[in-house]
């Protein structure tokens, strides 16, 4: 089956919802494809259901999450062809790049939507944290624990240790504390000297006054909670046979081991570049956030005409900024479709840019206070980087000694990045390790080329394309 639309938006988080709403309000036909069963993305995941079915839980989730109710309401109020539970696995350029075919599967049936403008709003993923034995059951990410809390109101029982650095870990800790969920310990890997490191960015943080205040409140909640905090932690390692039993680390010169049933790791978030790589858009390495992001213009358009990336997928700036970016991209597309004048677009865009500046002014401070981990490139030889194919950092270094020159060669040498996750969990680490080992820059090393299908599909699904 094939449908024609003006715009296809992929992802129904804050950026995707805002982009879709802005374009649709101007009169564009917009399809919104999202993997989740309900709109919200990861940040506002399941917010409608929580509000409807477990209103009492909204209180401990906090004001940043509650804002999602407004965003989803605004999205629902606009007419779009919204398709939850849809997995996009190919974006093909046909007809000399004029239109693109977005191929998706829903409930095992594939179909194509052709559009002149494609908006990739697939947001961020947590930076995978390759510590020794992180494949043990019981080792998860902070975002995973938070997602489980949002969607199902479930929390880790037994001994829970939060380990890592960054605002998301702080937010989860505060949410768990407010919900009276016991936390065994917080192992904070933020290097000491945060304020000195981020000092010159502090004035800008005050511009995002509200966000800064919320952050300080979270910090206060956590500091006053009585949960033991191990500062300046490094050299984290998981231990256990068949499942996690403990976490070891170094903190302030001491070697410490804590018994744990669940360890939630977190070292910040990075753009999910799977689809922007799939369309061959140009990407650049961000040295501060230590991740690749697509190169985009002021409207979010990538180096591939008609393909846009908006929100955190274009570079980490946070959920509020993503909403503004989404609106800007949606309006830019409406203008290009001839649905509004320059003046009408610019009126809203200028206001949105100002709001985005205010919302994201704190980012420079956060990026330095909670710096991206610098140790992944020098991870120990026995650490698994590619969880699917179980390829270690040592194997990757050995392959390099035998002439493996980049991530794409590592696929043929080691099957690294070729399992079901298609490199999502190892691409960043592979680039880091190869850059550290060779002395070349991450931009020179590059990252895995992403080929269709971008998600595993069955032959029956591929075949169902022709049946329509």
């Amino acid at each position, binding site marked *: 089956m094939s449908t024609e639309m003006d715009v296809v938006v992929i992802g129904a988080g804050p950026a995707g919802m805002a982009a879709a709403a802005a374009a649709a309000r101007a009169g564009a036909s917009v399809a919104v494809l999202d*993997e*989740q*069963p309900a709109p919200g993305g*990861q940040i506002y*995941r*399941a917010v409608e*259901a929580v509000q409807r*079915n*477990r209103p*009492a*839980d909204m209180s401990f989730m906090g004001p940043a999450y509650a804002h999602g109710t407004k965003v989803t309401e605004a999205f629902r109020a606009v007419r779009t062809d919204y398709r939850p*539970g849809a997995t996009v696995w190919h974006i093909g350029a046909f007809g000399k790049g004029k239109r693109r075919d977005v191929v998706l599967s829903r409930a*095992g049936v594939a179909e194509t939507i052709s559009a002149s403008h494609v908006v990739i709003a697939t947001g961020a*993923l*947590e930076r*995978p944290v390759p510590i020794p034995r992180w*494949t043990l*059951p*019981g*080792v*998860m*990410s902070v*975002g*995973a*624990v938070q*997602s*489980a*809390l949002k*969607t*199902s*109101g*479930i*929390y*880790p*029982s*037994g001994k829970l240790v939060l380990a890592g650095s960054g605002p998301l870990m702080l937010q989860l800790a505060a949410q768990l504390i407010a*919900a009276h*969920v016991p936390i065994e310990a917080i192992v904070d890997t933020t290097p000491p000297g945060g304020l000195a490191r981020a000092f010159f960015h502090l004035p800008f943080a005050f511009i995002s006054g509200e966000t800064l205040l919320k952050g300080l409140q979270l910090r206060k909640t956590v500091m006053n909670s009585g949960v033991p905090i191990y500062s300046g932690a490094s050299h984290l390692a998981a231990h256990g046979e*068949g*499942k996690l039993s403990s976490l070891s680390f170094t903190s302030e010169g001491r070697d410490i081991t804590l018994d744990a*049933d*669940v360890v939630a790791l977190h070292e910040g978030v990075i753009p*999910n570049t799977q689809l922007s790589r799939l369309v061959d858009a140009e990407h650049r390495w961000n040295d501060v956030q230590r991740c690749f992001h697509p190169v985009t213009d002021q409207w979010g358009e990538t180096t591939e005409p008609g393909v846009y990336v908006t929100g955190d997928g274009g570079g980490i700036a946070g959920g509020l900024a993503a909403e503004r970016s989404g609106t800007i991209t949606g309006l830019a597309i409406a203008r290009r479709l001839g649905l509004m004048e320059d003046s009408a677009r610019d009126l809203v865009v200028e206001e949105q840019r100002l709001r985005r500046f205010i919302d994201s002014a704190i980012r420079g401070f956060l990026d330095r206070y909670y710096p991206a981990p610098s140790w992944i490139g020098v991870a120990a030889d026995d650490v698994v980087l590619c*969880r*699917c*194919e*179980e390829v270690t950092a040592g194997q990757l270094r050995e392959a390099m000694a035998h002439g493996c020159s980049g991530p794409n060669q590592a696929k043929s040498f080691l099957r690294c990045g070729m*399992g*079901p*996750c298609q490199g*999502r*969990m190892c691409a960043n680490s592979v680039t880091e390790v190869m850059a550290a080992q060779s002395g070349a820059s991450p931009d020179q090393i590059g990252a895995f080329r992403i080929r269709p299908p971008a998600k*595993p599909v*069955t032959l029956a699904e591929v075949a169902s394309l022709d049946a329509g």
Partner: protein
Amino acid sequence: MFQRLTDPSRKPVSFRFEGQEIEGAEGDTVAAALLAAGITSLKDAPASGSPRSPYCMMGVCFECLVEIDGAGHQQACLIPIREGMDVRRHLAVQNIGEAVAGDTQ
């Protein structure tokens, strides 16, 4: 490994995992319902056969791949539970032969 925070009026939904009856709540994803039921491992790593459990819960890590109603490689963290669903673990390649042999004996 996980337990439920609240006991809301959400409707119970029962399904099977490896033949075992599991009760979840309406709106749970398959992965969340299994974690809440105390299931620690949803699949074996294809290469070494080591047990794995969900890492990201957002569709990125593929550590929650299960078979649902006969269709393989389904992401348990993205799919809501349905009454009567039949969910099975994926085994590592070297263990499939043993499992098949066990079934036919």
